[in-house]
């Protein structure tokens, strides 16, 4: 993770993790969907931990809401497998 000049995690760093999870989801149908969904979920959980540590609380809340929405999406997708 890149971090800012002090080495602290930035909102952009966390968002890039969310994007990575999105890519697991988008490419899931080419691979093993269950495995891809699990990778997306693990990435999102890690992103949530990093979001909780952000000093910018407004950014943290915004990104956490996006992560929660995606975890709900994964629940629905996994239920449909």
């Amino acid at each position, binding site marked *: 993770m890149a971090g800012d000049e002090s080495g602290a995690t930035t909102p952009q760093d966390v*968002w890039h993790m969310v994007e990575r999870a*999105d890519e697991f989801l*988008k*490419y899931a*149908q*080419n691979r093993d969907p269950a495995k891809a969904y699990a990778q997306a979920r693990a990435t999102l959980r890690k992103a949530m931990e990093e979001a909780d540590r952000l000093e910018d609380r407004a950014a943290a809340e915004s990104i956490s809401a*996006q992560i929660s929405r995606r975890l709900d999406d994964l629940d629905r997708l996994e239920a449909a497998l």
Partner: protein
Amino acid sequence: MSASDAAARVPPGQHLTKGWPILHASPIPTFNEETWRFRCFGSVDEEVEWTWEQFRALPSAKLVADMHCVTGWTKLDNEWEGAFFREVAARATPKAETMHALIHAPYGYTANLPLQTLLDDGLFAWAHDVEPLPPEHGGPLRLVVPTLYAWKSVKWANGVQFLERDIRGYWEERGYHNRADPWREERYSWQESG
């Protein structure tokens, strides 16, 4: 085409792909020609619904265009065949106040676009490079809007909701840009205020 000609057609932050990556947010829906329907609803004088046979009878057109995915790849010179959005809209008669549309697909996938962009650039495609559009790429029918990132080019399109006020679609609600112009690198919603 020279390398420099091709490079000039690649928006910032994108790279050329020779293949055609397959990516989408949902499983691939099953196509049943007998039960497939395409619906126009919302801000219209009267709702319209077409069967597959009726939709395929719309005036057809070809469009050669580049495709830009927000994940970073660009695929040049796609030849699409289908019905222009304007042909669909002409039959759905949106109300004068209509300014936006939400394109619908199975599993709750949607993408929102300005009506004018759809009228100018939108094509509902059923063929790609002279072959029927394969299911993994959105067959039997996908929207193609070459001027925007490809998540706006909804795969497995099955309806248009005409809107007087904008409603964000699936990825637009999940932090991606509402307009999505690849030449402006409009990838994320936080860029919208800038």
